[in-house]
């Protein structure tokens, strides 16, 4: 499969490339990146006015397969990923059964190979059944392709077990991703414990429920030498602690979701469960801290925590609704709006948050654009105006608070192994 992408502005954070380049793809690899490539006998894609970036990597998604296929499948979720400009996703293990064994990991890898338009890296569980008791088959899952381990959503409460898991994972060079939430502190909570929570008469999830676990994990990372990655960081104090850990040279990284740096608990209106997720939407102060963290490098990358739930489960009393929102298709639009158009970062920095640094959090060999490298590319516009229509989503679920949102800039085409797997409807 050969393809020539002409006239685009190529950006590669790794090599600090930023300029007019043509990109030639041959045999699923990038054959050449040159100021001008002229070749007659090859399919050409005109990328004039577009950014040509390394393929975006989302290290935190829920694809719901196996077991919860009515909400999402590996196929539907990865199609939504492609529509969001992602060429690779890492899927969390809270499926049914939990991905805590080589069998489940290889099932996901195999299904993805057959049905997914983008690369799918499973994340294995830390403990069997994510019950927080016995260690899962971490090494065996690694051998089948697991990119990291996490008990996302059902975090390991027992610090002794977490410490052992970290030590063990470190011996395989695997990152431990932690959904930092002290379940005793957050118990029964619905939204961030603040004025909005008091006003709505909902139960609070305190900032401390995240922060005590971030503190614990940093201390354990220091002690075990394991690489700890803080998932969906959401509070000012958590971010300050990660900043300090990095200053001390500790192996700690962090991600933030687009919704955590764009909207706050004040946006929760009408008891709409599309605003219900964990961690909860926090305060304007926390958003400021997240933006600062994205700018100064405390926060390594943007990850969506794409968490599909069917309409039925989200159409209930707020407190009964499950946590989580979809996010693959709106991530770039939100990041462009807030970070790039907001004047906080340049395009290289923005691309880095979706590519190089995201991949590096888990040690994935992705997120680079260079001759000889894999032909995974994300083409996007910084200017095209569009409106997000959740009814047109490629995900099987529609639980997004951003339906109807106007965006300036977004994905234009997604290329995986040299093949265009998605392109924006109006640019096709």
């Amino acid at each position, binding site marked *: 499969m050969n393809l020539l992408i002409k006239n685009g502005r190529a950006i590669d954070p790794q090599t600090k490339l930023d300029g007019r380049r043509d990109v030639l793809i041959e045999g699923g690899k990038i054959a050449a990146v040159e100021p001008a490539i002229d070749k007659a006998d090859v399919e050409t894609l005109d990328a004039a006015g577009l950014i040509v970036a390394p393929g975006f990597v989302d290290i935190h998604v829920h694809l719901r397969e196996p077991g919860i296929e009515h909400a999402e499948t590996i196929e539907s979720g990865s199609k939504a990923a492609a529509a969001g400009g992602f060429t690779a996703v890492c899927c969390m293990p809270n499926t049914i059964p939990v991905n805590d064994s080589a069998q489940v990991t290889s099932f996901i890898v195999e299904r993805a190979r057959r049905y997914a338009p983008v690369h799918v890296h499973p994340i294995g569980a830390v403990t069997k059944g994510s019950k927080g008791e016995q260690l899962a088959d971490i090494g065996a899952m690694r051998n089948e392709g697991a990119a990291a381990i996490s008990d996302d959503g059902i975090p390991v409460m027992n610090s002794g077990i977490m410490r052992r898991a970290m030590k063990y994972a470190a011996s395989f060079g695997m990152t431990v991703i932690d959904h930092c939430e002290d379940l005793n502190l957050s*118990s029964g909570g619905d939204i961030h*414990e603040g*004025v909005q929570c008091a006003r709505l*008469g909902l139960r609070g999830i305190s900032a401390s429920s995240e922060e005590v676990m971030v503190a614990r994990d940093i201390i354990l990372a220091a002690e075990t030498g394991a690489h700890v990655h803080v998932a969906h960081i959401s509070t000012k104090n958590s971010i300050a602690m990660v900043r300090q850990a990095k200053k001390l040279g500790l192996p700690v990284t962090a991600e933030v979701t687009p919704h955590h740096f764009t909207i706050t608990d004040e946006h929760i209106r009408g008891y*709409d469960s599309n605003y219900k997720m964990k961690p909860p939407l926090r305060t304007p102060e926390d958003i400021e801290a997240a933006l600062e963290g994205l700018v100064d490098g405390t926060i390594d990358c943007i990850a969506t925590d794409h968490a599909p739930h069917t309409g039925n489960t989200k*159409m*209930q009393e*707020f407190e009964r609704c499950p946590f989580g929102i979809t996010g693959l298709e709106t991530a770039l639009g939100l990041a462009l*709006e807030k970070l790039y158009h907001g004047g906080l970062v340049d395009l290289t920095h923005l691309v880095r948050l979706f590519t190089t640094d995201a991949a590096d959090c888990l040690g994935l060999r992705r997120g680079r654009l260079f001759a000889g490298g894999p032909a995974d590319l994300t083409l996007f516009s910084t200017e095209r105006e569009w409106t997000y229509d959740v009814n047109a989503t490629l995900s099987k679920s529609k639980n997004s608070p951003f*339906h109807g949102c106007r965006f300036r800039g977004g994905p234009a085409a997604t290329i995986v192994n040299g093949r265009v797997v998605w392109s924006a409807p109006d640019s096709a």
Partner: protein
Amino acid sequence: MAITLPANVTATPANTRNLLGAEDLSRAEIEWLLERGRFYKPQRNEPPKKLDTLRGRSIVNLFFEPSTRTRTSFEIAAKRLGADTIGIQTQGSSLSKGESLVDTLNTLAAMSPDAIVMRHAASGAPHFLSRYLSTPMINAGDGRHEHPTQALLDAFTILEVKDTLEGLRVAIIGDISHSRVARSNVHLLAKFGAAIVLCGPATMVSGNMAGIAPGVTLTYDMNEAVADADVIMMLRVQLERQNVEIFPKSEYFQFYGLTLEHLKPAKPDAIVLHPGPINRGRELSNEVADSQRSMILNQVENGVAIRMAVLEWVCGG
């Protein structure tokens, strides 16, 4: 750069009038409801008015939580206005068969009632439903959120003995965090410039409550709360909404129970309110409950009048 969210969650079709919370009511609307309540309240020695304002209309009383006084009060109010009422309790509905709240309400709405009065254990349940229903909805208490008709009848009761709400010092004492009565009263009283003091142990009084409306202060000290108070509003300890222990039951009365002794630093004409049902010996002493200061029975009586006003308002008279 601000992310502008679309207004996809604004409540209700525009022409539907709901009473979801005191927070959403304007001062003028509250004044209108209080005025109509006074009209409906029977004069001394007069039998209650029996009207045909809502003749031919049907009102569904949908109670997902046990209730005696609110349910009965709405029923009497509807009947005095000539409406037909249908009472549905959770045990009698298909909810116990696993039907979702949305399906239950859709089924009811298909029967075209003129209003639905709903009580539900989940905060926001009527707000959530009103986004999908065109039937007017009256919130008769949603979880820990609001109980607007209680706040209206409390204001009504206060105004029977005070000239104005403005400048009154109102102490609300007890389990504030779990109380929908407290939230509705805070919103209503704040709109009229009352000074509201919330009091209880810190596990029952979230500091964030001071941020929900202007003029609200917090104290953990009962004596401070009642000092110079014009109105003392005691709340029921809501054991059923407390998943975890938030106070040692054995010593609650000692620190937050209202006794005659407490009334001394209050204003000489201070009144005591309680939304009921009262737990004598837990929230207030027998002597207070039965004293001249207590307006608890007036509250019950006024509840019917104010709910007549509310029904008239949502049904458009």
